[in-house]
C-alpha cells in the first residue's frame, strides 16, 4: 500500500505542482493517475521513489515514510518504467534487464539468468538478449523496460506514460500484456497517463487530477464513468460514457435463446452467417463467459437482424441473445447504476483482445 498524506509540492518560483494530495494506492492493484498536462501526475509518481521530494506531507510505503529511506536503496526496491523506455544504449538487452540485480550485487551469471527469465515473461525472443537497444522496435524496447523494472522482483512498480510513445496497435497489445502480467504477479502498480481510455482500461482505481495538482475524483473505472464527481471529470471522460461503462458489466447475465433456424453453422458448430435469399448475411459473436455487455451489444449491432451469437471459448455456437434479451440487462443497469457499478468495480475489467476495441 502506498499512502499519500497531504502531500504538496511547491517549487521555489511558487508554482504548486501537487496540492495537498491524500490518497491510497492499494497493494496488488493498479492505481492510475490521470489528468491533463500540468496536473502533477508525474510529479506525484516521482515523489514515491524520491526522484522529487515533497515540500510537505508524507508518502508511506506500507508503513514506512519514504523520506526515511536512502534514495538509491529505496529506488532499487521499486520498479520504474518511463516513456522512452530509457534503456542504456551501450548495454546489451540482457544486461539492461539485469541492471538492478547488478546494482544489488548479484553475481553476473545469476543476474543474467534472471534477465533471461524476464525476457521470456514479457514475451521477447531470447535471441534479442545479445542485441543493443537501438536494434529493437519501440514496442520491444518498452517490453525490455518492463522486464528491467521487474528484474529484482520489486513489490511496487511505477509506470510513467510507458506506452504513449508507441503506435496504437502496439500500445493495445502492451496494455493487454500488462494486465496479463499483473494477473500473475499482483504488483502494487502506480500508472501515470494522460489518456483516459488507457486509465479506464488498466486501472483498478483511477485518480483524476486537475491542473494545479488537485485530486478531482478517485474511483473505480465503472463508478467514474457512471458518476463523475463534477463537470471537469465529466468533460475529461469524454463522450460515450454510457456505452463505455458497459465494458465493466459482464455479459454473463444475458439470457440466451437457442439458435434459430436461419443461423448457418459449419460441421463444427462454428457460425458462418445468417441465411437470406441472396446468401449469407454478416454476424457478430460474443463469449458470455469472458466478454462484457458492451461486446455483446456490439455483436448484436453487427448482425442485420439484431441478434448476437453467443459462442464458447473455442468459437462453437452456444445460443443467441436477441435484442430483447440484451435490453433486459441494459435496463437493469440503467435503473441501478450505483449498485451495479460498485459491484463490477471489484472485478477485473473485461479485456478480451479480440473485441475489446470493437
Amino acid at each position, binding site marked *: 500500500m502506498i499512502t499519500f498524506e497531504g502531500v504538496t509540492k511547491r517549487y521555489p518560483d511558487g508554482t504548486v505542482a501537487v496540492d495537498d494530495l491524500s490518497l491510497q494506492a492499494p497493494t496488488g492493484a493498479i492505481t492510475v493517475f490521470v489528468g491533463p498536462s500540468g496536473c502533477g501526475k508525474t510529479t506525484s509518481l516521482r515523489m514515491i*521513489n524520491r*526522484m522529487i521530494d515533497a515540500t510537505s506531507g508524507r508518502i508511506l510505503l506500507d508503513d514506512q515514510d519514504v523520506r526515511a529511506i536512502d*534514495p*538509491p*536503496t*529505496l*529506488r*532499487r526496491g521499486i520498479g*520504474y518504467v*518511463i*516513456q*522512452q*523506455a*530509457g*534503456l*542504456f*544504449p*551501450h548495454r546489451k538487452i540482457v544486461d539492461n534487464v539485469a*541492471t*538492478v540485480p547488478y*546494482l544489488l550485487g548479484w553475481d553476473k551469471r545469476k543476474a543474467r539468468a534472471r534477465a533471461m527469465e524476464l525476457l521470456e515473461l514479457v514475451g521477447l525472443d531470447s535471441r534479442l538478449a545479445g542485441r*543493443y*537497444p*537501438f*536494434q529493437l522496435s519501440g514496442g520491444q524496447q518498452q517490453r525490455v523496460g518492463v522486464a*528491467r523494472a521487474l528484474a529484482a522482483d520489486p513489490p511496487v512498480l*511505477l509506470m510513467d506514460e510507458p506506452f504513449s510513445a508507441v503506435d496504437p496497435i502496439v500500445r493495445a497489445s502492451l496494455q493487454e500484456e500488462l494486465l496479463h502480467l499483473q494477473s500473475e504477479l499482483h504488483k502494487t502498480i502506480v500508472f501515470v497517463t494522460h489518456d483516459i481510455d488507457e486509465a479506464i482500461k488498466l486501472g483498478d482505481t483511477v485518480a483524476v487530477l486537475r491542473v494545479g495538482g488537485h485530486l478531482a475524483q478517485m474511483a473505480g473505472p465503472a463508478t467514474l464513468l457512471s458518476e463523475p464527481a463534477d463537470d471537469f471529470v465529466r468533460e475529461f471522460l469524454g463522450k460515450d460514457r454510457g456505452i463505455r461503462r458497459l465494458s465493466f458489466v459482464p455479459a454473463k447475465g444475458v439470457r440466451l435463446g437457442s439458435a434459430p433456424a436461419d443461423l448457418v453453422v459449419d460441421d463444427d458448430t462454428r457460425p458462418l452467417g445468417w441465411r437470406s435469399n441472396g446468401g449469407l448475411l454478416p454476424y457478430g459473436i460474443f463469449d458470455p463467459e469472458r466478454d462484457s455487455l458492451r461486446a455483446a451489444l456490439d455483436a448484436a449491432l453487427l448482425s442485420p437482424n439484431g441478434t448476437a451469437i453467443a459462442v464458447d471459448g473455442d468459437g462453437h455456437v452456444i445460443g443467441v441473445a436477441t435484442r430483447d434479451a440484451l435490453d433486459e440487462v441494459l435496463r437493469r443497469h440503467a435503473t441501478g447504476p450505483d449498485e451495479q457499478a460498485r459491484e463490477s468495480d471489484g472485478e477485473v475489467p473485461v479485456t478480451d483482445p479480440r473485441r475489446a476495441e470493437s
Partner: protein
Amino acid sequence: MNDEPLVRWDWIARNWDNGGPSAIKTLLESHVVMALLPVVFGLLIALPLGVACARWRWLYQPTAGLMNVVYSLPSLVLFSIFLSVTGLTQSTVIIPLTFFTLAVLIPAVVDGLGSVPEHVRQSAVAMGFRPLRRLLQVELPVAVPVVLGGLRVATVSSISLVSVGALIGQGGLGNLFIDGWQRQFYTPIVVGIVLIVLLAVLSDGLLVLAQRLLTPWSRARRRTA
C-alpha cells in the same frame, strides 16, 4: 640544384639510423613521444575537469574561455614562454601541447556527457544508481563516441604541432624541415612531411579501430539512423 632529385634515397638510407641525435629514427621517436604524451595527459586532465564542468555549469564558460584564449595563441609564443621555465627540453613542447589538447578535449567531454539522453540519465537514477557509479557505468560510456571524436582531432593536431617545436630545437620530425630549408635540400623536408602524415593517419586509424571495438552500439546506431 636543378638536376637534384626531389628525394635522395641514399641520404635517407644513411641518416635513418646514424646513431646521432639527428637520425630520422630518433627524430621520429621523439616526435611520437612529444605528440602523444600531451594527448594522454590532456585526456587524464580533461576527464575530471570536463565532468566537473558538466556537473557545475558555471565552471564551464570560464574554463572554455581560458582554453580558447590558450588555443588562439600561436604555438610558438607558448613554446617561447615555457622556454624560460623548462628550457630546451621536451617539456617545453609537451606542456603547451597539453593545453592545446585540453582546449579540444574539455568541450568534448562536456558535449559527450551532454549527449547522454535525459531519459537514460533519469532511468539510471530511478534504477538506484548512486552518482559516481552512474557516471562511470552509464554517463561516461555513453559519452565515449563524442569524447573519441575529440581525441581524434586532438591527436592529429598534436602530431602536426610538434614540428613547430623545431624552432626551439625540440621539434621531432620538424627538425628535418629546418635542416632542409637551411640547406635548400628537399629530401629531409619530404621525409618529414611523409612521416608526419603517416603518423597522423596511423594514429587516427587506431583511434577509429578503438572506437569500433569500444562502442559497437554507436557504430551500428549511426548506420541505421
